């Protein structure tokens, strides 16, 4: 199972974008006519030469993707991460043959199905039943395949009662559920998924991620673009980090996720009205049973008589896992003369479920909140648990408990 199914070499994609040049403050009719004539001439010229029409006076060529090389092996689940505009979608579009690369080369072995949007090609006038066939065909399923899975799809979407209603009468939730249900029953060799999971209610999203997990475990090759680091951390083995069209890092999922978070480090330099705080995580990757260690540098613009610090640790769903208050640990002394303070906070050892953590920091003085920083720092908890492997059950909840167990031999005898 080690053969390469996708090999990309020096992949690049350019787009033409237009700019408007600076305009004079006063526009005379003569100028307007002149400009219009000029642009008319230009577009006519472009058309004769068969070029693309670009609005604006100056045309610039931008590289949405440049010199990206990677290999993906059969059965791997690879996350593609990066900020908006990093080139993730462009990459997926090239891999799913929607657009051709401007440079480089990709070799793909096997049939690719791409899921760049939920409900592509749904027609509002057609009924749910008809749209299942339509959408299935668009995603590359055969009629026989759709017929075989029809009941399963309907069941997954939970729209039995409305199968013969035009989908334009559906609630948006029903619509999305039906659309995802069709997509979830695709069985390609290589699946390319853009951020399609960010739809529907919480329960349905869980169902979707569960389905994604199933697909991933089914031995299929999956490329998964997401901004949801938690989903990437829990679904993918490998990840590719793109930055402004170039490949920043690739490899196992946790180091790549850390690299992504590191790049967002600037977000942790927080400036408020009265205080500047630089928060830094000393241990960026937590191993099982590690303590969370946070270093703060606080620069004050005014005195704090009764300073308090609150720290909240949220998991990737936004749910609070743990809270920490400075007064329950050690009270912070009154700060008056110094205008800079460095704090080192180390929690008790905790075993947090693998995934992404987001840390919120709040500063208060005399019971009054001064500053709150949501998502001040983010941290990856890589997969560390030896217990998570089969045949053990899946852990639930935010914390993995370790306990001591004493077995009472005598009590045991009674039942035999």
């Amino acid at each position, binding site marked *: 199972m080690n053969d390469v199914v996708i090999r990309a070499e020096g992949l690049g994609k350019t787009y033409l974008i237009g700019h408007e040049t600076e305009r004079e403050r006063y526009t005379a009719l003569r100028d307007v006519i002149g400009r219009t004539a000029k642009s008319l001439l230009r577009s006519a010229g472009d*058309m004769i030469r068969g070029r693309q*029409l670009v609005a604006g006076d100056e045309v610039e060529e931008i590289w949405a993707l440049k010199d990206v090389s990677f290999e993906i092996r*059969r059965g791997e689940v690879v996350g593609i991460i990066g900020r908006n505009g990093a080139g993730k979608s462009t990459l997926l579009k090239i891999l*799913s043959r*929607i*657009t*051709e*690369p401007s*440079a480089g080369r*990709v070799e*793909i*072995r*096997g*049939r*690719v199905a*791409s899921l*760049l*949007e939920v409900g*592509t090609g749904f027609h509002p*006038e057609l009924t749910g039943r*008809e749209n299942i*066939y*339509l959408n299935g*065909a*668009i*995603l590359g399923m*055969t009629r026989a395949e759709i017929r075989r899975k029809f009941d*399963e799809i309907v069941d997954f979407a939970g729209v039995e009662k409305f199968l013969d209603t*035009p989908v334009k009468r559906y609630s948006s939730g029903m619509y999305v559920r039906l659309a995802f249900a069709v997509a*979830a*029953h695709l*069985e390609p*060799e290589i699946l390319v998924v853009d951020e399609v999971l960010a739809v529907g209610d919480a329960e349905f*999203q869980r169902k979707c*991620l*569960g*389905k994604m*997990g199933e*697909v*991933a*475990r*089914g*031995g*299929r090759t999956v490329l998964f673009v997401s901004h949801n680091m*938690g989903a990437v*951390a*829990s*679904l993918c083995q490998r990840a590719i980090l793109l930055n402004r069209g170039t490949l920043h890092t690739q490899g196992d999922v946790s180091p790549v996720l850390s690299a992504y978070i590191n790049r967002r480090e600037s977000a942790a330099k927080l400036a408020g009205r009265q205080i500047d705080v630089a928060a830094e995580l000393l241990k960026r990757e937590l191993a099982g049973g590690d303590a969370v260690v946070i270093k703060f540098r606080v620069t004050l613009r005014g005195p704090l008589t009764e300073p308090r610090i609150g720290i909240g640790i949220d*998991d990737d769903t936004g749910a609070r896992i743990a809270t920490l208050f400075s007064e329950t640990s050690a009270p912070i002394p009154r700060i008056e003369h110094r205008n800079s303070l460095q704090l080192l906070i180390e929690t008790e050892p905790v075993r947090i*479920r*693998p*995934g992404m953590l987001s840390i919120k920091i709040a500063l208060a003085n005399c019971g009054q909140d001064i500053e709150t920083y949501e998502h001040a720092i983010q941290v990856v908890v890589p*997969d560390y*648990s*030896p217990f*998570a492997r*089969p045949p053990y059950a*899946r852990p*639930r*909840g935010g914390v993995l408990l370790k306990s001591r167990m004493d077995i009472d031999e005598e009590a045991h005898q009674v039942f035999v």
Partner: protein
Amino acid sequence: MSIDLSEPLPAERSDTARVGGSAGAPVPAPSDRLLILEPGRAERNYWSDLWHYRELFAVLAWRDVAVRYKQTVIGIAWAVVRPLLTMIVFTIIFGRLAKLPSDGGVPYPVLVFAGMLPWFLFSSILSEASNSLVGNANLISKVYFPRLIVPASAGVVALVDVLINLVILFAIMAWYGFAPNWQIVFLPAFMVLAVLASLGPALFITALNVKYRDFRYIIPFLVQFGLYVSPVGFSSAVVPEAWRFWYSLNPVVGVIDGFRWCLLGGESQLYLPGFLVSLGVVAVFLWFGIHYFRRTERTFADLI
């Protein structure tokens, strides 16, 4: 976005136990088909690829037919009303007012309707297809399939309309007590000819319309203009002999003449040199249309 903590930990991924559901079904046997994507690379198995997507073609064509008359009061009757009214107007203007001669003893309405069938086929394929790619922009930019499918399936709608019209034509012929002869067996061949004749220019304009939306405005004009330039309301026999050959450069002339020849039971003569010229023009247009479409279809997603 939320995640249930019951989600398997990453380590569990190696689990070979199938959870059930389709995603747990066996992975399809690895195909050895190697696909290479490179700038400007010509698609080698273009036609086999097209064949592979025949089901999508069928489904898209079915969709276009199914939604065509949704939420209209008289529904499919629209396919009947339009040509019927056009026929009445043309019969009055060309037959009664201009007093143009018919072919042999053919009743004028039958002559007009026999000419209108191929014209409607031609013009609707042209207009439906040219807007089809832009109308399906969401598909083009999100899913891969041979783009040729979209204009082709849009053309199927026109074909369905024409088949309905054919029934009306037979009704009108029965009304006038006019019977076609054996030549009618060639009708399917001329039907194919009409489709091919329209496909060439349609593909060319469809591809151009993606890049330059000007063609959206050109098409209605072209269709209106063509209705009078082509021998729809009159017989092409009224064209002076000296001009007949050059007149046939309009491929629709050959198609309409062919339709009349096989539908009007020997009353309408086929002007052979002109017909061959039309065939040639159709072939050239078709080759050029497909060629241009194939060359530009890889960039559709970027331009649309």
